[in-house]
């Protein structure tokens, strides 16, 4: 389960997966400490064992240590997903005492200038300090980097940075186009040549490092022939709870306006998981149209991503347009072709993820 504790964030990364309208009324007021602890209890009873504490920036919640301790007492394995901005060693130590299991800290590039430019906030030095504290305090550490046109050439250096920090895992997450990333797609999407070079580097580094450092490569799915098995299938093993208690089968699903999502303030989590229309709508295979229905890959990729179908084809109930068999694949090909045509210097500017821009999106509806 991913608990998005708040959508407030001091960073402004243009690929943020949060909703464009995160600053709008739909995501307020935030759940209280007691409400979150109840949600954690209900999640544990449902079988949840892994808990991501995310956001926005989860360390902005002043009750974070209470939430961590509540999760720990329940036996949830907790991961803090943070930018580490303004995080102190004392705060990290307090979270360790509260029972936090694992820390994931993002970085936006291997060098300070580019990292701070992408984040829209001077944060690189604080991140580097926090990586060291995390290891000094004995946490397992994941270094997370979202990859796009401006930093993909740094993949080798990023892996070596994670290695030098003593990280256990490095997540090289090619941008997935949802939320702000979908809005900024033209500025973020890399060329095929960039992706090819980066992938070769990843393979070389995996060979060199063996199991000393786990390198997770999140596929650039637009460039694949078949869609990703998004979330392992709709509502099969994953729940996102948003800051004001709406429950989604993934962190992008709230964008699907043809569905109504339930709230933990009104229903128990178990009812939402088992009974709600939104969780059952695309569960299993009954909803699948052709070409998925008769395709042997439907048990492998579950029809791909519902959010992507909604964003690109305008219908959450069709085959993921990334699939080469989808009648909408030409829309994905057109986006890729546009990137190949435009040089990096000519590429559109991105919109930073920030509250004023978000309020404008929310007002537009």
């Amino acid at each position, binding site marked *: 389960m991913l608990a998005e504790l708040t959508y407030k964030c001091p960073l402004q990364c243009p690929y943020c997966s949060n909703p464009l309208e995160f600053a709008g009324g739909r995501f307020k007021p935030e759940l209280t400490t007691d409400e979150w602890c109840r949600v954690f209890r209900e999640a544990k009873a449902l079988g949840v064992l892994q808990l991501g504490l995310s956001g926005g920036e989860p360390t902005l919640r002043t009750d974070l240590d209470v939430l961590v301790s509540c999760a720990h007492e329940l036996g949830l*394995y907790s*991961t803090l997903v943070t930018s580490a901005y303004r995080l102190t060693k004392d705060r990290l130590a307090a979270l360790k005492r509260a029972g936090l299991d694992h820390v994931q800290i993002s970085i936006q590039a291997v060098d300070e200038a580019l990292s701070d430019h992408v984040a829209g906030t001077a944060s690189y030095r604080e991140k580097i300090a926090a990586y060291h504290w995390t290891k000094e305090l004995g946490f397992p550490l994941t270094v997370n980097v979202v990859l796009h046109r401006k930093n993909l050439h740094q993949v080798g250096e990023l892996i070596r940075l994670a290695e030098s920090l003593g990280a256990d895992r490095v997540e090289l997450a090619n941008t997935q186009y949802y939320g702000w990333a979908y809005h900024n797609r033209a500025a973020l999407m890399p060329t095929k040549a960039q992706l090819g070079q980066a992938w070769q580097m990843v393979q070389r580094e995996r060979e060199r490092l063996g199991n000393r450092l786990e390198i997770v490569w999140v596929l650039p799915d637009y460039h694949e022939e078949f869609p990703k098995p998004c979330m392992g299938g709709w509502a099969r093993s994953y729940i996102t709870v948003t800051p004001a208690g709406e429950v989604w089968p993934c962190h992008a699903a709230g964008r699907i306006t043809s569905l109504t999502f339930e709230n933990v303030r009104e229903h128990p989590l178990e009812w939402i998981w088992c009974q709600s229309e939104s969780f059952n709508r695309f569960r299993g295979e009954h909803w699948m149209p052709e070409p998925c229905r008769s395709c042997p890959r439907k048990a492998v990729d579950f029809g791909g991503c519902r959010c992507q179908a909604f964003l690109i084809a305008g219908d959450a109930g069709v085959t993921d347009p990334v699939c080469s068999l989808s009648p909408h694949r030409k829309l994905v090909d057109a986006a890729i072709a546009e990137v190949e045509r435009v040089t990096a210097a000519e590429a559109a500017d991105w919109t930073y993820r920030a509250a004023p821009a978000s309020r404008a999106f929310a007002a537009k509806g």
Partner: protein
Amino acid sequence: MSVVSSDAIPRVASKARLQWDEVRSRYVLLYPEGLVALNPTAAEIMGLCDGARSVADIVGLLKQRYSAVVERDVAALLDGLAAKGLVSYGP
């Protein structure tokens, strides 16, 4: 493939946690972004990895409890988890 020696002392890696899961009625080994659900044999072996017992000690204890215990099978289980970084060996 090399097999762990009898006098190595296996322990659950610091990033992993062994616990009983009521919902699945199984022991699970939790670690960053993942879990392994253990069968009863694997769970018993992991429970004996206390950071003091050697592989030989663990095999000895298992032999007191069961008739057909093969040291190579115990070592293979531990090596499999060690390859995932979930078990570490010490002297």
